[in-house]
Structures are given as C-alpha cells and as structure tokens.
C-alpha cells in the first residue's frame, strides 16, 4: 500500500523509466484504475516476490517434477505458451485451452477463459491439480515443500510459517504473478505524450477506437466481458466456455475478452489457440462472411469495412502494445534459488 503512494508521487510528470520500478514488485501505473487484488491480505515484500518467482519456475509443483508454471507461461511471450495451441501438462497430456498471457492480473475481476475463478491466489490451484496440467494434489505439493529445507527457510522468513500451508503457497505465487505489470509499451508512452505514433500507427489507432475498443478497452485492453467472436465452437473439444460456469444456455461458446497488451508476442490466438498469426486474426474480423454463430452484437465489422490497407494499419497499431521492458524485465526471469 505504501509503495503505491511513493510511486504515485514519483510517477507524476517524470520520465518513462520511473514507470518500471527496478525491483519488479507491483506498481500502479499513472491514471490506471484502482487494482482489485487484496494487497492488505497479502502485503508484498521483495522476499515474498522472490519466493513466488522461485516457485513459478520450479517443476517441484507438478506431480512428477517435470512441469513448472513457466512451462506454459514464458516471459518472452508475455507469459503465454507459444507453439502450442493448447497447454501441455505432465506425461505429454494436452489441455483444452490456450494458456493465456499473464500481465496486469491485479485488475482482473476473474480468471480463466470462462471466468470461473474469482481470485488470483486461488487460481493457482487449478493448474497445480488439473490432470492435464501439473497433475499434483495440494497434499502432495505441500508435503514436498515441507520436506525441502530451502523452501522451509524461505516460507519461515516470508510468512513466519513453521509449517507451509495452502495459503502460504498461494500467497507466495500471488506475490509474483500480481507483480507482472505491463504498462510501458509505445502506446503508453504516446498516451503520456513522451512519443508519437507514426502516421500508419495513428490510422490503425483510429480504426482500433472505431471497431475494437468497445471490448478491448484501454488501459487494460479488455472489458472482462464474455463474448463470441465468430470463430465458432472448437470441433475437437466442443468447449462451451462461460456456460460451464453459469449453466445458462445463452452463455454457450462465450469466452472472456483477452487483453491485447503484448499481443504481438503472445501467439497463438483465441481460447483454443487455433489462429497462429496476428494478421490472420485481423483477417478473421475483417471477413464477416466467414464467421460462425454465435456472434456477439459488439462485432460491428462488415465485409469490406476493413480494406487490406486498413488491416495493415491496425496490425501496426497493435504492435505498439508490445512492452519490451516487460518482456525482458530481468526481475521476472528465472533466478537460481539463493
């Protein structure tokens, strides 16, 4: 809490590096809404963040110690899973959904493509215990951590925990994942009036505001609603998305609107990773004749409303959402346990 205050004071009117604090801990970018994460319940410390990072990169969390969080969430691709349309787990098992990028999670009101998970700390239980992901049990992972002298010492230091419990594990992971803030792209520097768009980027930005911004709303580039974008159900998995959580027929095949931040690097795209290139995604939106029902009403594009030139301009704009200070932030990389 104190940290936000300090950064807020520093942030006003100062140059851009101030927006990327050196230690990697969470910060609230200028003019962004209040984060939803409960920091009072889990006060961030450098030790806690670093413990969370060690756990994030440690395959000890999986049943056979082969898969870590980072197996499907790689930093250089905005913590998404490139080259795989859906996530991979232990024993080469394959999941049903595209592992999403991890960034700006402090502002998320819910998690997963279907929004079934309501808090960041509790989210980690899902990949830990899912048979197609890490396939472990909470009992199993806590037993391993409690037998490990490195982790025993660290958890004692961070949480004063004699015995590592579920909440300690989840809070440590939360300290790392909530700190993955990406708010320093070219777009952000243009908004801060520190740089300017090229003419093509500016044209793309205008198209974006006209056609995309209603769902992919700045500054998070998502409105966190559930929509159908015309790609149609996945033939292999027939994943009905939001309806699995709400039980409502009207929610069938709706998925959470994903952020577009770092979208250039977080391929493949869509909830099942079926589109591999960003220009193909734009092409999909530009060709309404190819859409498959259901289609949410926000999709206003009609055939030919985006010319091939427009599509290129839009692509150029989307690339301004790439934040290299995030993708290459050394604080988020693997560090050997110390």
């Amino acid at each position: 809490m104190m940290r936000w205050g300090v950064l807020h004071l520093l942030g006003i009117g100062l140059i851009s590096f101030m927006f990327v604090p050196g230690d990697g801990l969470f910060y609230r970018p200028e003019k962004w809404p209040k984060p939803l994460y409960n920091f009072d319940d889990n006060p961030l410390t450098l030790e806690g963040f670093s413990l969370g990072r060690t756990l994030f990169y440690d395959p000890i969390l999986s049943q056979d110690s082969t898969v870590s969080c980072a197996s499907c969430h790689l930093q250089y691709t905005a913590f998404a899973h490139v080259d795989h349309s859906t996530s991979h787990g232990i024993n080469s098992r394959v999941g049903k959904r595209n592992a999403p990028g991890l960034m700006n999670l402090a502002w998320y009101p819910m998690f997963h493509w279907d929004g079934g998970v309501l808090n960041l700390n509790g989210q980690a239980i899902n990949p830990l215990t899912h048979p197609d992901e890490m396939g472990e049990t909470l009992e199993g992972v806590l037993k391993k951590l409690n037998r490990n002298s490195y982790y025993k010492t660290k958890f004692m230091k961070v949480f004063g925990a004699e015995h590592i419990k579920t909440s300690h594990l989840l809070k440590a992971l939360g300290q790392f994942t909530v700190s993955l803030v990406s708010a320093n792209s070219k777009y952000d520097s243009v908004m801060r009036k520190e740089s300017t768009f090229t003419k093509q980027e500016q044209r793309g930005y205008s198209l974006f505001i006209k056609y995309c911004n209603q769902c992919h709303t700045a500054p998070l580039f998502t409105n966190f609603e559930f929509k159908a974008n015309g790609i149609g159900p996945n033939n292999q998995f027939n994943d009905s998305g939001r309806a699995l959580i709400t039980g409502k027929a009207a929610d069938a095949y709706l998925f959470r609107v994903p952020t577009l931040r770092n979208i250039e690097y977080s391929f493949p795209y869509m909830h099942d990773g079926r589109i591999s290139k960003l220009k193909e995604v734009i092409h999909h939106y530009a060709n309404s004749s190819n859409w498959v029902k259901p289609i949410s009403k926000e999709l206003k594009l009609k055939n030919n409303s985006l010319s091939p030139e427009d599509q290129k301009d839009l692509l150029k704009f989307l690339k301004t959402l790439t934040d290299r200070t995030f993708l290459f932030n050394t604080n988020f990389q693997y560090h050997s346990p110390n």
Partner: protein
Amino acid sequence: MDSLANTSGKLEGAFDPLLGMYWAWNTGYIQLKMTGNSYSGGITRPFDYHIGGYRVPFSTSKSFNILTANQFVTANLDSLFSSLPIQSTPNIMLPGPAAQQIFNSFVSTFE
C-alpha cells in the same frame, strides 16, 4: 457459507482448499459432500453428491441463529437420505437446480 465467504479468497483455516470442500475451477465451497453406496433390492448403486453454489438463483446457503455456545443443533439425516435421487441422479457435482433441491432437503432436516 454465504456468497462473500465463497468468493473472498481467504483459503486458510476452515477455508483451506486442502480440506476437500473447495471448487477451484468454479470458485466456491462445497457445503455438503456425500459419497458412498446405496444397497437396495439386491443392487448396489454408487453415489456422489457435492452440493454447493452461491450464485442466484441456485444459492445453497441458509443462516441459523445459534443463541448460546452450548446449544445443540440436531438434524434428522434419515429424511435427507431417503430424499436423495440415487436412482435417477446418482452424481451431482455442480451448482444448479438439482444441487439446490438436495440442499433444501438438507435444510429441512434441522429440527
């Protein structure tokens, strides 16, 4: 547990997911869990009921006022077991109308 307890993400003490009463993929707690076999007419039928859910209209919470620390709450579980739809619906693992119906039977067992 009311809806706030279900969604606040406390996850420790009685709220520890380790206790096996937590749905991770659809945040919330299982209020009542019954697993076993039913023997009837020479036939064994396994059943599994994970009853919970806090979203309206399929909420499964009910408040009771307990007046003193020494007050006992008694429940007649026989009426709950005899109301279970073991033949038609032996497995319920999701919030929804079926879960709510069992929860209502559970509530009515308290005298």
